[in-house]
C-alpha cells in the first residue's frame, strides 16, 4: 500500500513540477504583474547564480510540498470515521523508532545538500571583489541615492513617485564594483533583475558588484524602511553600450566643468527639478 501511495505521490510531483517549469518559462514574458513564481530574468552573473540556486532549492521543495500535502489530504479522507467500519478501534501505536529515525535523517540530508549548494554560491558571488574595471560609490540618504564615479561624475537619483528617477548609468559587460555607504539611516539597494540587496549602513562600507550583459534599463527600490519617503526611493539602472557610455561620460564631464556643481542628470527627468535645484547641498 505504501509503495502505491509513494508512486502516486511521485507521479503527481512529476506532473506538477512540469507545470511549475512551464510557469518558469512563462515568467519571462511580461503579462499580469505580480504573479511570477521566480525572479525577473537576471542580467548579471551574480543574479544568475541566485536564480539557479532558487530553481535548485525548488526541486526538493516542490516535491516535499506536494508529498506532505497529499499525505495530509490522504489521512483525513481515507481514515475518517465515516469511512471506517462500525465499531472500528484504531491500533494504539505509540511510535516506531525506525520510522522516527528515518524522518529525522531524510530531511537532514536534504537541508545539508541545500546548505552546501547555497554556501558554494555564497563563496562564489558574495565576496568583496578586487578585479573590478570600475568602482562606483553608492550612498543612500533620505530619500535618494548618489552614485559617485570617482572621476568627478556624480549622479543624483532623488526619490519620486511621480515619474522616472534619474538613471544610474553603467557600461555593458563591465565589472562594476559597488561600494555602499549610509549617510543617515539604513537604506538597502535592490534591483531584482541584477542581484540581491545590499544595505547602505552608516559607519562602514558594504560591497556588491554587477556586470550587466545587455543594453537596457532595470528598476528597483530601496528595501529598508527609512522614513516617510521610503516608497519614493526608486532606482533605475541603465546599461549602455561602451561607446554610448563614453559619450555620456564626456557629456557629464563637460557639464560638470561648465557649472561649479556636478551635473545631476544625463537625461532630464520630468519631476526631478525640485531635488536638482540644490544638488551641491545634498549630504555626501
Amino acid at each position, binding site marked *: 500500500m505504501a509503495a502505491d501511495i509513494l508512486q502516486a505521490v511521485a507521479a503527481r510531483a512529476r506532473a506538477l513540477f512540469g507545470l511549475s517549469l512551464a510557469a518558469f518559462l512563462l515568467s519571462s514574458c511580461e503579462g*499580469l*504583474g*505580480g*504573479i511570477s*513564481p521566480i*525572479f*525577473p530574468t537576471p542580467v548579471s552573473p551574480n543574479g544568475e*547564480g*541566485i536564480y539557479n*540556486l*532558487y530553481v535548485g532549492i525548488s526541486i526538493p521543495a516542490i516535491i*516535499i*510540498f506536494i508529498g*506532505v500535502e497529499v499525505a495530509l489530504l490522504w*489521512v*483525513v479522507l481515507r*481514515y*475518517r470515521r465515516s469511512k471506517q467500519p462500525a465499531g472500528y*478501534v*484504531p491500533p494504539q*501505536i*505509540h*511510535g*516506531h523508532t525506525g*520510522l*522516527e529515525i528515518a*524522518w529525522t535523517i531524510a*530531511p537532514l540530508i536534504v*537541508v545539508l545538500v*541545500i*546548505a552546501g549548494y547555497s554556501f558554494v554560491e*555564497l*563563496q562564489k*558571488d*558574495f565576496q568583496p571583489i578586487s578585479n573590478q574595471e570600475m568602482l562606483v560609490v553608492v550612498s543612500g540618504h*533620505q530619500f535618494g541615492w548618489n552614485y559617485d564615479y570617482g572621476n568627478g561624475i556624480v549622479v543624483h537619483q532623488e526619490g519620486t513617485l511621480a515619474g522616472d528617477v534619474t538613471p544610474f548609468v553603467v557600461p555593458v559587460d563591465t565589472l562594476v564594483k559597488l561600494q555602499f555607504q*549610509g*549617510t*543617515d*539611516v*539604513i537604506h*538597502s539597494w*535592490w534591483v531584482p533583475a541584477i542581484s*540581491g540587496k*545590499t*544595505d547602505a549602513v*552608516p*559607519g562602514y562600507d*558594504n560591497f556588491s558588484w554587477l556586470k550587466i550583459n545587455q543594453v537596457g534599463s532595470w*528598476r*528597483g527600490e*530601496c*528595501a529598508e*524602511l*527609512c*522614513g*516617510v*519617503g*521610503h*516608497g519614493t526611493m526608486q532606482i533605475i539602472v541603465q546599461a549602455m553600450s561602451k561607446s554610448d557610455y563614453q559619450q555620456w561620460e564626456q557629456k557629464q564631464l563637460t557639464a560638470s566643468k561648465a557649472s561649479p556643481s556636478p551635473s545631476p542628470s544625463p537625461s532630464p527627468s520630468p519631476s526631478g527639478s525640485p531635488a536638482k535645484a540644490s544638488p551641491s547641498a545634498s549630504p555626501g
Partner: protein
Amino acid sequence: MAATTALPRPKAYDDTFFRPISIWLTTTDHKLIGIMYMVTGILSFVLAGIFALVIRLQLSQPNLSVVDAETYNQLISAHGVTMIFFFVTIFLTGIANYMVPIMIGARDMAFPRVNLLGFWLVPVSILLYYSGFLTGGALNAGWTGYAPLTEKAYQSHSLGVDFWALSLIVWAVSGIMASTNFLTTIVALRAPGMKLTRLPLFVWAQISTSILLLVVGAPLAAAMILVEFDRQLGTQFFTTQGRPVLYQHLFWFFGHPEVYIMILPGFGMISEIVPVFARKPIFGYMTMVAALFGIVFLSMTVWAHHMFTVGMNTYVEGFFMFMTMLIAVPTGIKFFNWIATTWWGSVEFTVPMKFAWGFLATFLIGGITGVYLASVPVDTQLHQSYYVVAHLHYVLFGGSVFTIFAGLYYWFPKITGHMLSRRLGEWNFWTLFVGFNGTFLIMHTLGLEGMPRRIATYANASWATTNMIITVSSFLIAFSVLLFLINVVRSWNGGEIAGDDPWHGNTLEWATTSPPPPYNFERVPPIHSFMPLRDMRESGEVTTELEPEAEPAKV
C-alpha cells in the same frame, strides 16, 4: 468508581462572563487571569486587524492616499507590535495560564500574586504603546524599530519611539514573570503520578516556550533601554555615529526566538488535538519532546539570518544559514509524527480538527519558504520584500492563528461550559482558510517581482490587480473573524451545554467540571500515563457521557 462525576458539584463558579468587576480586578485564580489574558489578546487581534484593513485599502491600487506615508508607517508598526506582542504572545500565555495547572493536576499557579501582577502589566504595556499616538505620532519604524531611524535625529517631533521602548520593557518584565511562574508550577506542583514523561505535550511546549522567553526577554529589554539612553541621555550606541547593526543583533536575538514563543504552544495544542480526534495516542511522544527542545536550542543560534544584507563575513553567514536550515529537521519530525498519529486512525473532522489541519496545510508552506529565506544568496533577493511578508504570515497566521482557533474551539467548552456553534465554526474555518490563502499566497510572487515591504504606495501599475485581489481577500478574513466573534458571544451563555468531556479527551482538564471549580479538582484522578483520562475510560473507572451530551452538570 466514578472519580469525577459522582460527587455533587457546588455551583460556586458561575459560568457566565458577567461577574462583579471587583472579582476580575482582584482575582489570583489562574483561570480568571487566563480568561483576561485571552480576552485582551482577542481585542488586540481585532484592533490590529482593523489596522491591516486600512493598510490593505491603501495598497489596493497604485498611488493611493487613503492615509499619508507617515500615518501608514505608524499603522504598519502598530499592526506588527499589536499582533506580535499584544495578541499572539498574550493570548497563548492566557490559554496556558488556564490549562497548564489543570493539565498537571494542580490547584493554581505556583505564585498566584506574581501571576496577577504579570497580567496587569500587560494593559500597562498596551496603554504605554498607544500613548505614543497622543504625543504627535506612535512608532513609525516598523515593529522591529531599526536604529538609527528610531533615533532622536530622525524622530524629533514625537515621543512614539520612547513609549514603544517603555512598553516593550514592561512587556518583557511581564513575560519573564509569567515564564518563571510556569516553570515553577510545572516543576513543583504536579499531581502525584504526573511524572515528567507523562506531561501532556502542551505542557512540554509551555516549558520550552517559558525557557525561551526567560532567556531572550532580558536582551529585548536591554536593547530598549539602550535605545532610550540614545534618545534621552545622548549616548551613541545605535546612532548614525554609533553601531546601528548592534541594535539588529540585540533585537533579533530576542526577535527570532519570539517566533518560536508564538508557535511552540500552538504545536503543543495540535499535539493534544490530533490524538483526541484521531482516537490514537500521539506517535513518538519522546521525539516530540526532543524536537521541541531541538527547536529551543536552534532558535537561539539563528538570529542573524534576519541580517544577511548588512554585509557580514560569508563564513558567519554560512553558520547562521546552516543553523536556520537545521530547524527544518525537528519541525519535520513533528509534522511526520502528526501525520503518523492520524494514519489508521478514526478521524472525526470536527472544527478544532479542521483548524489543526488548516494549520498543517498552511504552516508547511511557511516552513518551506523558510528554507529559501535561510539560503543566504536567495535571501538577499527575498529579504524585506513581500515574499517575507507572505512567509511570516504563513508562519504567524497559518501557524499561530490557526492553532489559536483550533485551541479555542477545543477548549472553549471547558472554559465556558458551552460548545461553540459547529455550523458557524465551519463557516469560520472555510472563510478563514480561503481568505488567508487568497491574501498571502500571491504576496510571495509580488515579492519575487520586486515589491519591497513597508512602502506606503507604489507606482508600478502592473502590481495593481494582484494587490486588489489581496485586499479583497483580506476583507474575507475580517468577515471570518466577525463570524468567530459572533459565535463566541452567542455561545458563551446560549450555546449547547458541553458537559465535562465533550470530545472524549485524554488529559486531566476533561476530568473536572466545565467550567472547573476554583480549586480545579475535587479529587485528582490517578495518573498512570500521559493519557490519564483515556486510561480511566478504558478501565471503566469513568463512565462519563460517551453518548452525545445528555445533560449539563447537575447542580
